[in-house]
């Protein structure tokens, strides 16, 4: 299927949303996004990591080393309370924006 390019500035929202379902490590987040979008988004997978580290630096996620079910050491990311608020804010903003754009596109000529 054709993929759409990831819009600038929306990766954070994707990651926050993914983590709102619970702590995950980098690969799991990538898996979740692929599953949820049906692989419709063209994301360079490595780009997730700088983004995650940035989210950690801003205090929206926390990281902790843990063990996968295969006993592999993995860095688990988790939303902080501030991160949860930020997720809500960005989701609302995005929905509103999408709605406005939709109205613009569907509007007939005046």
């Amino acid at each position, binding site marked *: 299927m054709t993929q759409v390019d990831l819009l600038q500035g929306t990766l954070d929202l994707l990651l926050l949303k993914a983590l709102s379902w619970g702590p995950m*490590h980098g*690969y799991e987040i990538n*898996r979740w996004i692929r599953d949820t979008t049906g692989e419709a988004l063209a994301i*360079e997978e490595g780009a997730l*990591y*700088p983004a995650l*580290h940035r989210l950690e630096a801003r205090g929206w996620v926390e990281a902790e080393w843990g063990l996968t079910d295969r006993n592999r050491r993995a*860095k688990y990311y988790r939303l902080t309370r501030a991160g949860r608020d930020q997720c809500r804010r960005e989701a609302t903003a995005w929905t509103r924006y999408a709605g406005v754009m939709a109205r613009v596109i569907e509007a007939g000529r005046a």
Partner: protein
Amino acid sequence: MGPLRRLFRLAPRPETIVADIDEEITLHLELRAAELEAQGRSPADARAEAERLFGEVRTHRGSCVTIDQERITSMRRADAFDALRQDLGFALRASRRRPLFTAAAIAILALGIGANTAVFSIVHGVLLRPLPFEEPGRLVMVRNGDSRGEFQVSELERMRYRQETGLFERIGTWYFGTLTISGTGDTERVRTLFADADALPVAGIRPVLGRTFTPEEDVPGGEPVVLVSHNYWRTRLGARQDVVGQPLTVDGATATIIGVLPPDARLPGDFTGARAELVAPLSPDPVPDPRNFHFLSAMARLRPGATLEAVNARLGVVARELVETVPPLPDDFRITVVPVTQAVLGQYRPAVLMLLWAVGLLLLLACANVAGLLLAQAESRRREFAVRAALGAGPGRLARQMVTESLILGGLGGLAGLLVGYGALRGLLAVSPPGLPRVDQVSLEPVVLVFAVSASLLTALLFGLAPAAAVRRGSGVSSLRGEGRGSTVGRERHLVRRGLVFAEIALAVTLAAGAGLVVRTWLNVVKTDPGFEVERRLTFQLSLPAARYETREARWQFYQALTIELGGVPGVRAAGAVSALPLAQEAGDWGFLIEGRPPLREGERNPFADRIVVTPGYFEAMRVRLVEGRLPTPADDATREPVILINEATARRYWPEGGALGARIRLSSNVDTVWRRVVGIVGDVRSRGLEEAARQEFYFPHAQYPTNPSQNAMGTLSVVVHAAGDPEALTGPVREAVRRLDADVPLSQVRTMDAVLDTTLSVRRLQLLLLGFFALSGLVLVAAGVYGVVAFLVSERAREFGVRLALGADRGGILRLVLGDSVRLAVIGVTAGLGGALVLGRLLQSVLFGVRFADPVVLSVVPLVVLVVVTAATVGPALRAARTDPGMTLKGE
């Protein structure tokens, strides 16, 4: 993660960051590859595809590393701030819990830092600041001398030295005198610098307005020109910019002001006491006086490259030449050059530096004491530290906290020290002897403030290190269990501390004994009877201008009229004048012959006494005792029989069997051939100071003074007015009275006799205050030191006390035990101190007055006082020891 764990999470190390990121990325790639393999690809294919999907590994990895490193750095910074805030919080809480200790520590530090700040201000202002000359390193004072001492330069020698252009780039000469300025308000006599045309240029002093003299103006009969000092220009001439070219009436003649000097302009000779307000040309005679009077100061600028040895060698040759050609010069005449800084400041350097060493030692002792107090504290806070260590604070962290506490103490001590220093400086300046150069310019300058701040920080580190190190060593499980006490290291430290306290006790006794001797001296001096009444006396000096008061009669009539005029001023009970004011001026001695005495034998000296001229009313005004005969009256004038008075000392010396009254004496100099009858004997007056025995004196009635070449002796007299009330209130009316008689006669040196006496006591007062200060500081330090040591001792032996109490010892016994230990140390220290006191007393003996250096009163009171101080300092911890709860100590804290 809970808040507690977050609190103690430490920032990861740099190497870990990169390793972690690598691990993260590696895991991703492996899992992605595994997923792709599960979809059917080959392992190598899956791997390649995973990497393709990932994107540029290096770039992403690099971004992650950068992001993480920045995060770590700001985390570290935040941690540091947090830690600092925590430390401050702990430190402040700790100080509040022990207000007495904190106050004591700050007080001790304030004492040490304050004293050092004050003394350093003086050292800086007097010694360290460069003299106000251009390139003072090349300036030297040229001095003459012989085996008996040094003396100044004559006009003849001046001309000769000016020829030495190979040595001196330039040489200037000057002397100080007094001139009368009139016409601008009050007539006044001002100290004047008589300088040749080179004197100011050689020092590099340039006028701020106008110019200095030209050589043409510097000749006898040259244009009357003057320069004024900056202060005179500001206060009497209104700091007007157009003052150059204005006239000024100097000694009755009109002179032109040609320049104004800069504010700090002074030449050697002007650095102490009243400063010169006027500069007039020296006008050296081109034909120098063959009598070769030595009255000039000379300063020269050496040629670049000239060494002192070379200059002195050459001057040795010049000296030899002068001895040949100038008859009045002694055979051992020599010429030396001295660097100007040493000439002006050299004699004060040792005393001032010794003072600096002394306060430095005081500061060190203060630091040692505070360190001891802190150590005693740290031991009792061991449990507090152990708990914090268990909660994760490393020994480094705890040490840092101790240092923070020390810095706070040091900072507060420094601030308090600044206040103390300011006060101490004011006090020191108020009592400093007038002879200290540049003392009028000493103040708390920025340099000194920097010094004070550095001193407090340094002291903080010094005394903070000891307890910090102790805490570092002692923290950990072992201190919780109460082990580690009684170790050899602890015992060593304890011995050092006891040694320190012992030294402090000895030092305190020595200083207190010295102070005691000085106090007794002061009391002896102050209660000495000067021979006249000091209170309620106003005195001033009058100088009759020679031009209008040429004859003896004219001068005598003026003073007689003045006495009458002053008698009419309300509030004046008596008035009189004298040629040499007691305690202020020195009279010269003259030899005399006694009628009817056999001629002198070989080697015998003529009778002699200090020659003093008095007007009628003087002895009454000063309430000098009349022993026999009568006092001078206005009837003792030039038409009546010449009479004379002597004092008791003269009578005792030359008429030991009595009979002085009625005897006739004659001055032995060739000037006077008149026999004078002794009509009165007055009580002794301590003219040269309270500490010097009265000198032999004789007194001439003003109108009968023999005519002699030095005319001014009768024109310039010091007048004394006995006031019914406050003498200073009479200043205005007295000035008015003088002005009514003659508006052009200047008054100078207007002051009360109290002030005159006070000045003579300034050195004594300084001694008293300094030694008193050091003695007091010594006692304070002893108290602190003893308290620290005993407190430490008590905490160390808490378990032992617990055992004793449990085994039935009574609390009084514990108290006696602790006190006894202290007193034993004190007794040994006091004994050593007494030895030191005898040594110090021996050193001071030459400056004591009426007190033996081994004074029994001092030597018994001082040890008692020190013992009381030691006991008082011990009482606190001793009581705490006696109140030990055996249950708690035996359980092991």
